[in-house]
């Protein structure tokens, strides 16, 4: 029997970390993820976990400490947001290239500047090509569930890549909502113990980690990273199936909501997907065939799988909560349209940049996107695919 609780998104992640009981947590507080290390350090003080908590002086050091711990053979976790992630930048790439399966909770917030503490996805989009697996979460439940699955995916021998679990800052991180928790002993059994094949503290196998890697081999090592990312899709699906057996909650690479018979659809990530579901339910009552494709796994990007689900549609809107400032469109939009082109899926598709810096996304905003999509479906006309939603003019 699962445990019925009510927790904020941050509490949910902290509880997951408590149940995982990692060897090391190194973190530096930054809004809106601060509560995660705050709650976790309470668990450490109370002796609920036996984790070594490293209260570092910066996020660069937080990631460095996680790298050191993982290289030594320990299981390490951290949490951050926005500029905290920016300060980790150098070490983010080192973590993935050293194939260290660190797990991070990224509570999404706008990267400065000007200074803003509220939600958008500019922090996550900035590290989308850094070799980390990236899972997105609609609500506290998904943030919790993704965290419980994280180590099994990251530490899999075919993967060995760091993984970040994203959720929307404040919108879900600070909202108290219902959640179903898994019992401690079941989590322990599901997550398992970390048994790295090669690690620094193994005196029977002395190794070097992160030495100079020049023309002779770096290319091959990067290829191995890319291969690991390709293989991660299958591992994510395997682990998700096991998780479904445990909890009854089904997770795949993305979630389809009333998509199979839809004529128009929105593609988005995190909390906006929930608001979109509510709008779809209302539109369906009036006969509008609206649907949703919610991205769960953004890296690796399930290009072929997504393209397969879109070909029957008459119009698609991709919602990006970060502007790529490239005069082309947001990161999700360019990934989706590229996936569609390569897989010969030809459906009129537009992009909306929305929710920047915490601009609230209302049901009426989502409704307006579906109205636009109906017009595109009827006329086949797209004047400008690079659009804005909720922007004051």
């Amino acid at each position, binding site marked *: 029997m699962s445990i019925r609780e*009510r927790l904020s998104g941050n509490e949910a992640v902290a509880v997951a970390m408590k149940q995982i009981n990692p060897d090391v947590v190194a973190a530096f507080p930054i809004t809106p993820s601060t509560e995660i290390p705050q709650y976790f350090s309470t668990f450490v003080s109370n002796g609920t976990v036996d984790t070594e908590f490293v209260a570092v002086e910066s996020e660069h050091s937080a990631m460095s400490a996680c790298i050191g711990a993982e290289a030594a053979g320990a299981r390490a976790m951290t949490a951050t947001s926005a500029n905290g992630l920016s300060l980790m930048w150098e070490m983010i790439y080192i973590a993935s290239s050293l194939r260290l399966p660190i797990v991070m909770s990224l509570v999404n917030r706008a990267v400065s500047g000007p200074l803003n503490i509220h939600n958008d996805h500019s922090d996550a989009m900035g590290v989308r090509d850094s070799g980390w697996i990236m899972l997105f979460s609609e609500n506290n439940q998904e943030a919790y569930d993704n965290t419980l699955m994280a180590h099994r995916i990251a530490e899999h021998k075919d993967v060995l890549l760091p993984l970040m679990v994203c959720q929307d800052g404040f919108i879900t991180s600070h909202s*108290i909502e219902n959640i179903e928790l898994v019992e401690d002993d079941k989590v322990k059994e599901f997550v398992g113990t970390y048994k790295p094949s090669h690690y620094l503290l193994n005196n029977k196998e002395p190794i070097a980690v992160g030495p100079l890697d020049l023309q002779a081999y770096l290319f091959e090592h990067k290829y191995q990273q890319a291969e690991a990312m390709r293989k991660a899709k299958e591992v994510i699906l395997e682990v998700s199936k096991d998780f479904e057996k445990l909890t009854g909650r089904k997770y795949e690479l993305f979630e389809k909501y009333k998509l199979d018979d839809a004529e128009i659809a929105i593609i988005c990530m995190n909390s906006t997907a929930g608001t979109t579901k509510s709008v779809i*339910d209302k539109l369906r009552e009036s006969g509008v065939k609206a649907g949703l494709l919610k991205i769960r796994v953004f890296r690796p990007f399930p290009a072929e799988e997504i393209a397969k689900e879109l070909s029957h549609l008459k119009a698609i809107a991709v919602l990006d909560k970060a502007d790529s400032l490239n005069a082309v469109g947001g990161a999700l939009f360019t990934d989706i349209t590229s996936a569609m082109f390569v897989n010969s899926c030809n459906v009129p598709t537009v992009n909306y940049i929305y929710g920047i810096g915490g601009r609230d996304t209302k049901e009426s905003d989502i409704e307006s996107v579906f109205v636009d999509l109906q017009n595109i479906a009827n006329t086949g006309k797209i004047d400008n695919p690079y659009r804005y939603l909720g922007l004051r003019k």
Partner: protein
Amino acid sequence: MSNLVEIRWHGRGGQGAKTASLLLADAAFNTGKYIQGFPEYGPERMGAPITAYNRISNTPITVHSNIYEPDYVVVVDDSLLDCVPVTAGLKSTGAIIINTTQDDSTLKSKLKDFDGDIYTIDARKVSLETLGKYFPNTPMLAAIVKVSKIMSEEAFLADMQGSFKHKFAKKPEVIEGNMKALEMALQNVKKIN
């Protein structure tokens, strides 16, 4: 979606409107509901206007936006009536509950654009008599339960007794006063129109 109840709280930083919204979410959760409780974070400082929200439903809630057409509005500080559009979007089938000692005709004229029910309570008096200090959020919590009927008063009081025991584990001497504040508030809410 007809079972969904949406509540918007208006208060000033330091008065506990956010805490009250979280306690309401807790109480509704304990009666088996699906809940959301969340504040709108801004440049918070003591005395600045703040907003908090609750969604309470018999079915899972997927919407993640602020609330623009609430069923109920709770005003924890009546000075906000003069500077915040507290009735914006408030359903005419709904109600507003104000912590105030202003006379009925003044309130009615300030809220003349709102057609729904207006309730008042003197949360300062309740708080000072039961707690000896001004904590308006406890009486306002009881007031919204009374007006919205999202749970029975008995279930609410029983649940709050448990919550206070947990919340004030290190200050058990304040539990009785807080329970009295709730009980007195339930009796002191009045409809003025």
